[in-house]
């Protein structure tokens, strides 16, 4: 009997010990615990990714990554899912306990990917360089000591034979755009910074041609195309405004004194280090439009060179880390759509590379027409939000304010106050408490702002620009650009705008905006002038499309659906919460009040009669 008991005990103990040692040895596989990736969610729903990540990363047809969408490749997985150790160094994603390894161990599937592919973001970056088939520092023609900036494009063109012709067909080059839908020529009436026409040498600061000479420019020469301003990767290349955008190859002392030295650029070094465009190269012009960082656009400034995801959910270096060209994809140097030919309402939807064009400059080209999904926060309202996309641009809710990155944008200028000089009869500059110019002798007073609430308006994508020589009514503000759109217009949506206000000089005799002369060695504007001038209020509106905020910063329904909300000025739609029929409301509450008063009086009377009955039974 005792022997039998011992045997039974052994039967129980032995498997338990075996199991325990197995677990201790790591042989028993617990449910995988893996570190969370960056951001709120993956580029695809988790349940899709769990099942299909193999196919998405490496589809059966052998194309490098599924749909060509951003971050749908192995480097994209690694970029978000690689963790850092205590010292900040990346841990490979296939290391023990890391994102890939933990699930693969659980499901007993070996990971082959990383025997060839990068398992940390640093390795991905190295791999990325490895994908480049040409090392420009090995080209003899780029090792020459370039005597002039125009010699660099000449060298580029020896290999990139079609690049000059391609670029010359673009808005980036032409300095003028013919709107294909209206036939109107755009250009030269440059925002509220005054009417240009005689100062084009300074325009060449940004507009990318070289060899502006004596007010003339050869638009037909491929060699005048400045390749470096877009393709420099060193940060050393600069266009110099005082010399029609030419980059100095000798150090130039500023005429004003030592403070404004233009360092010589080593063109050979820059030419040997050309590469893809970057936030910095695009930003060198677009961030600095209107003569300074962030002054013009309000949604484009140097804060986008290294933004947090809270400033720009797409470009955030702590998030998706897009560059400008992730969305603004050029084919043969041509970007579509441009600011001048934008669609206020995208009608195509998701652009599938290989099937559609590669442009992703609209929200819908990646997110489609029904971007809102059910969530615990909006279980019943996501369908309504998707209906909004018909009439409200994504930007309206998802860009809650502009100039959010810490760089103020210019909101108004007053040229009528220009010309005052200091007590020492020298040009004057008055700064605000943060050291930003609010008055200069050259340009007059100006105001800047940060975290500004946009102006909202119906917009059909068609911007009409006022032309030089158009007669104006000095009694009314002159709109330098106007656009159409209404609630019933199927092409129009409600868009957010930065509105700039200015006091501009006009020719009082001809009743046209006056051509100012602000720059250059010549003495006069070279335009007809009646001899009398005045100042007129002017406005210009720029649609906002950048600095899309994370979802938690997006506008809430109640920001607009209330009687004093953001869309108070939008006509033609009934908006619950904002709109009401006032007589009906008045009557309704009167009725409710009458009912309350009636039953109250009835009740009081009953109490009074009851008391009288008790007193006089």
């Amino acid at each position, binding site marked *: 009997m005792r022997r039998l008991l011992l045997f039974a005990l052994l039967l129980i103990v032995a498997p338990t010990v075996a199991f325990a040692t197995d677990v201790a040895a790591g042989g028993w596989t617990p449910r995988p615990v893996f570190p969370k990736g960056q951001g709120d969610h993956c580029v695809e729903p988790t349940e899709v990714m769990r099942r299909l990540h193999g196919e998405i990363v490496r589809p059966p047809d052998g194309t490098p990554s599924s749909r060509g969408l951003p971050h749908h490749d192995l480097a994209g997985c690694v970029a978000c899912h690689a963790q850092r150790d205590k010292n900040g160094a990346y841990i490979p994603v296939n290391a023990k306990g890391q994102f890939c390894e933990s699930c693969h161990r659980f499901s007993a599937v070996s990971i082959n990917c990383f025997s060839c592919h990068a398992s940390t973001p640093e390795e991905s970056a190295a791999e990325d360089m490895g994908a480049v088939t040409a090392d420009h520092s090995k080209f003899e023609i780029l090792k020459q000591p370039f005597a002039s900036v125009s010699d660099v494009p000449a060298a580029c063109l020896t290999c990139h034979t079609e690049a000059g012709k391609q670029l010359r067909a673009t808005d980036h080059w032409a300095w003028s755009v013919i709107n294909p839908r209206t036939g109107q020529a755009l250009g030269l009436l440059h925002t509220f910074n005054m009417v240009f026409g005689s100062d084009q040498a300074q325009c060449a600061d940004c507009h990318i041609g070289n060899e502006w000479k004596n007010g003339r420019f050869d638009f037909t020469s491929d060699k005048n195309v400045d390749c470096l301003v877009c393709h420099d990767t060193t940060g050393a290349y600069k266009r110099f405004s005082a010399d029609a955008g030419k980059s100095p190859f000798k150090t130039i002392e500023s005429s004003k004194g030592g403070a404004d030295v233009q360092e010589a650029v080593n063109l050979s070094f820059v030419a040997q280090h050309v590469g893809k465009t970057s936030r910095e190269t695009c930003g060198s012009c677009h961030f600095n439009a209107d003569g300074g960082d962030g002054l013009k656009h309000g949604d484009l400034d140097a804060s986008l060179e290294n933004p947090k995801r809270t400033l720009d959910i797409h470009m955030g270096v702590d998030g998706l880390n897009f560059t400008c060209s992730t969305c603004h994809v050029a084919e043969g140097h041509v970007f579509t759509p441009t600011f001048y030919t934008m669609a206020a309402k995208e009608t195509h939807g998701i652009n599938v590379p290989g099937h559609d064009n590669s442009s992703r400059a609209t929200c819908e080209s990646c997110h489609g027409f029904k971007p809102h999904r059910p969530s615990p926060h*909006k*279980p*019943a*309202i996501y369908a*309504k939000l998707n*209906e909004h996309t*018909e*009439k409200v641009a994504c930007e309206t809710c998802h860009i809650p304010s502009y100039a959010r990155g810490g760089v103020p944008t210019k909101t108004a200028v007053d040229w009528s106050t220009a010309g005052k000089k200091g007590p020492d009869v020298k040009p004057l500059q008055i700064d605000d408490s943060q050291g930003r110019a609010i008055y200069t002798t050259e340009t007059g007073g100006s105001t800047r702002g940060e975290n500004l609430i946009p102006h909202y308006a119906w917009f059909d994508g068609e911007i009409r620009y006022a032309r030089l020589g158009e007669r104006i009514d000095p009694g009314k503000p002159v709109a330098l650009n106007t656009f159409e759109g209404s*609630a*019933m217009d*199927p092409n129009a949506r409600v868009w957010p705008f930065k509105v700039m206000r200015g006091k501009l000089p006009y020719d009082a005799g001809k009743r046209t905006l006056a051509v100012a002369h602000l720059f250059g060695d010549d003495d006069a504007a070279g335009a007809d002038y009646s001899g009398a001038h005045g100042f007129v209020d002017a406005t210009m509106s720029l649609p906002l499309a950048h600095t899309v905020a994370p979802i938690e910063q997006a506008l*809430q*329904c*109640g920001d607009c*659906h*209330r*009687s004093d909300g953001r869309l108070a000025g939008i006509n033609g*739609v*009934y908006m*619950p*919460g*904002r*709109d*009401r*029929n006032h007589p*009906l*409301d008045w*009557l*309704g*509450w009167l*009725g*409710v009040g*009458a*009912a*309350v008063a*009636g*039953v109250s009086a*009835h*009740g009081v*009377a*009953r109490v009074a*009669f*009851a008391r009288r*009955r008790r007193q006089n039974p």
Partner: protein
Amino acid sequence: MNPDMRFQRLERFWHWAQATLIISLLITGFNVHDSIRLFSFARAAQYHIILAWALTVLWVFAIFWHMVTGVWPMLTGKWRQSIPSRGSQIMAMLHFYAIDIFLAGGHPFHRTRQQKHNLPQRATYLTLNIGIVPVIWTSGWLYLFYDSWGAGGLGQRYLGAIAMVHTAAAFAILVFLVVHLYLAFTVSDTPLGNLKAMITGYEEEENAQPH
């Protein structure tokens, strides 16, 4: 079944479920209308939609229940009872609310299980059921789905009118609620008798035996 029971269990459930939903719909609805700011618009709108679906489910359930139990006169041919045809009865009830109630005159209406409501009550509920309720339901569904039926801007064009009708019906229901609460709470043979009856089913606990 206890013949003294004034309101059956399902009737009571229906009443209180409706009461909760309708009062919540009024609150969230007037919140959406920006008349009150108890919740954010997003919350109010979502609650309003969810409550509307809940009320729909309740109504589908209630119609089913009324059909199988046959207590709904509308569906069993007894609907003529709902039409207050005898003017003298109406005048008697109005006379009661206007005069006798102050003088402690007797309630002229004898309530039975088949006829729970006196004629002005029936007239009120008839107005509610064939006048206001269809209007608020129809306008509400059109309001919720205006983007689906109103392709090409049609819904958008008429949304304002629909919203106006919906709001007007909501005001009517609010007025009804005010008067209903007053009468329900104060006009009964015993203090709070209606309320008791609607909760327990019986007006007087102690008189609950059959006679």
